[in-house]
């Protein structure tokens, strides 16, 4: 018989070892699934995990990894602060869209002027847009006790409608021959967010993601505010005893996560995506929720989780084009990763005991 016994203190060893174990289990279970689909499991796993980093076309894939991981990490770091405090911003996708719209609007307003100040101004506008969109659920929660999960989630759909309206209306390229979509910002030097080193995939959004990781790490480890965030999530009554105002924390955490999501949107629209278009929203805001938990809400963990998640995307695309794997199997593979991670997570707080059936 299996018995779970709660550890007196969480095990430090397992906190570090569970993600590795989860990836290993995913490879095994995924390999079985690929084998059932009639593919060589070793080749499939190699195509997903090895080729993008070390394979023949790694020079291209490595850049793609950073391009995909950047916004995921930037958004997930912001979300993790709120999640740690028990504040559930599920609407990062909406804040990401609004950041992109605000930032792009500022850039397009200056077109075709040139000036060093245009891009920084867009960055500010992007962060502000995301922050503003996150303030709606925050204020509604603090003033009227609404549920921020529902409000932030539903605002994603509002943001998507605004995005379509912008792509077809106010921000549409007047010289675009009537096609939907704005001017291409990446071809407008004063507003573009190009690769800092050509071919590396490293654009300003990736730099911002790294800065966010370091800042969040310092905040959580060394600053009283980070301590209060952790305290509020673990023991809300103790947090009130420590003088934390729950409402202030809601506004703060929603604000930070919204602003970071907005920044991610701005860097995307001015860089890899290039323009405001109907299909600009690509689900980064939702995937970042998975990344945040995959990284166990720890900034350094999120950095690794973001890269890992980007790898399964890039490698999964690679596998479906080269090996003809159905894209649903790639999604199932990503689902397995999340499942195993959450399942083996149990080991850090519980110990498993094997017992022979006890005689009554």
């Amino acid at each position, binding site marked *: 018989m299996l018995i779970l016994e709660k550890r007196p203190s969480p095990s430090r060893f397992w906190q570090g070892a569970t993600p590795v174990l989860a990836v290993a289990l995913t490879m095994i279970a995924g390999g079985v699934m690929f084998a059932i689909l009639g593919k060589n499991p070793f080749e499939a796993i190699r195509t997903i995990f090895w080729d993008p980093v070390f394979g023949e076309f790694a020079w291209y894939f490595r850049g793609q990894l950073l391009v995909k991981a950047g916004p995921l990490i930037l958004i997930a770091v912001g979300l993790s602060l709120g999640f740690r405090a028990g504040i559930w911003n599920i609407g990062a996708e909406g804040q990401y869209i609004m950041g992109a719209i605000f930032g792009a609007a500022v850039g397009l307003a200056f077109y075709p002027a040139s000036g060093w100040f245009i891009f920084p101004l867009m960055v500010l506008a992007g962060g502000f847009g995301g922050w503003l969109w996150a303030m709606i659920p925050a204020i509604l929660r603090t003033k009227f006790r609404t549920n921020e999960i529902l409000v932030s989630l539903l605002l994603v759909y509002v943001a998507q409608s605004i995005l379509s309206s912008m792509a077809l209306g106010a921000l549409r390229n007047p010289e675009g021959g009537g096609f939907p979509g704005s001017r291409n910002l990446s071809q407008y030097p004063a507003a573009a967010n190009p690769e800092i080193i050509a071919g590396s995939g490293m654009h300003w959004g990736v730099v911002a993601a790294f800065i966010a990781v370091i800042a969040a790490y310092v905040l959580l480890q060394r600053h009283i505010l980070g301590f209060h965030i952790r305290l509020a999530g673990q*023991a809300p009554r103790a947090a009130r005893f420590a003088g934390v105002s729950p409402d202030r924390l809601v506004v703060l955490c929603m604000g930070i996560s919204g602003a970071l999501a907005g920044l991610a949107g701005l860097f995307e629209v001015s860089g890899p995506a290039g323009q405001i278009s109907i299909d600009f929203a690509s689900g980064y805001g939702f995937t970042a929720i998975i990344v945040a938990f995959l990284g166990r809400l720890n900034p350094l963990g999120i950095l690794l989780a973001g890269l890992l998640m980007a790898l399964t995307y890039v490698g999964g695309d690679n596998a479906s084009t080269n090996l003809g794997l159905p894209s649903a199997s790639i999604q199932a593979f990503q689902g397995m990763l999340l499942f195993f991670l959450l399942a083996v997570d149990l080991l850090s707080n519980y110990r498993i005991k094997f017992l022979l059936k006890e005689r009554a």
Partner: protein
Amino acid sequence: MKTGTDLLRVEGLTKAYPGVVANSDVSFTIKPGEVHALLGENGAGKSTLVKMIYGLVKPDKGRMTLRGADYAPSEPRAARASGVAMVFQHFSLFEALNVAENVALGMENPPKMRELAGRIRQVSQAYGLPLDPDRMVGDLSAGERQRVEIIRCLLQDPKLLIMDEPTSVLTPQEVDILFRTLRQLSAEGTAILYISHKLEEIRALCDEATILRRGKVVATCTPRERSAREMAELMVGAVLTPPAKNAKPKGAVALEVTGLSVNSPIPFGTSLKNISFAVRKGEVLGIAGVAGNGQDELLLALSGELKSARDAVKISGAAVGEQGPNERRVLGLVSAPEERLGHAAAPDMSLVENALLSGSVRKGLTTRGFIDWGATRTFAEEIVKEFDVRTPGTWVAARALSGGNLQKFVVGRELSQAPSVIVINQPTWGVDAAAAASIRQAIIDRAADGAAVVVISQDLDELLEIADNFAALNGGAMTVPRPTQGLTIDEIGLMMGGAHGMEVAHVA
């Protein structure tokens, strides 16, 4: 079997949990109709022992016989079928159901409601326990709720009734009613196993006593023939020195509460109604009351977790009613809530992090918001050393500490901040006698250093020992504080609200 007239015979019971032996080779016997006390400090093994008798825990070794026959209950239902009943310290009642419905829920084959109500009336009259079967449990006082539990047991016509700390929720008058019932039961031949650490009660009620220390039987005695002091020393295994009160003259008013009225933030909580009092420097004000009469709310309102009218609370003349806990800490107020895990301390955080929790303001553990972890660790180590907190180190999670040790840490953390006003709810709840004495002494020492102290407690002996002035909370209102010296236990009982539900008793 030659068990003679013994009702229950316990021989060599042993129960070990990982890392601790809860009971080691425990033996004693109870005769029919005997009131037998089980005496010991917190953690001495009393609870484990009665859980084995009631079938909740299976012993590792040893045997029990009941009326000469082997007795090894595998579950409480088997124990009840053999005639063993138990009244727990914490009630298991549904507030939204009435008395008869609650009683029916605990029975194997409940009779029809009307019939059951009749039997409840009958038993409650026969044993002088006034109780109306149609009343909602949510409207009952703690003493009345206990009667529901007792009557639930009595309907099963038990041969042995186990009572776990039954008086901790009662006023002195209610204790008298309970004791009369227990004596009547005993006269009718029902044996009672009475668990308590209140020595005067045991001297008044019990025929025999078995004293446990660290899981072993260290003595048996006849309580009437021993002094409370002798029994306490048997229980603790050391000579006790009661704390010396601070005799210095009192200073200026440090904490002033005027017309404090706030709604309770707790569901089924008690709102505070127009509370006024003042505590001077060097004074200890003891606030008594049966649990649930506004103690938690009063602590929240004083600590700043619950805000009130601006002038309702003043610290050294500064009106702080609208300010939060940290603003009040700056002015010198520290507080220790009753609930240690989850309120006074974060269970999954280390002792170092928990030291920062309330110590950051007064100990200056942050500069521009950045935490000085080195200084915080030193602070935590000081608390552990000075208050004798037993722990492998300051890195362990708060939840890994025993209740008593965590209490020492929490109280120590607050008292080590050079406070000018101290508010503590249940300072020695769940702490062993030696540690309780040292916590009380530390509180008195801070008062002698000039701090104004408010101690909220359900332990009357504790309040009488350390408080200069005494008041009681009853239904969210507070009596006018009176000097502790010269108060009789009857007067205290009346301040606490006398016996609830006595109107019914007169009718019956």
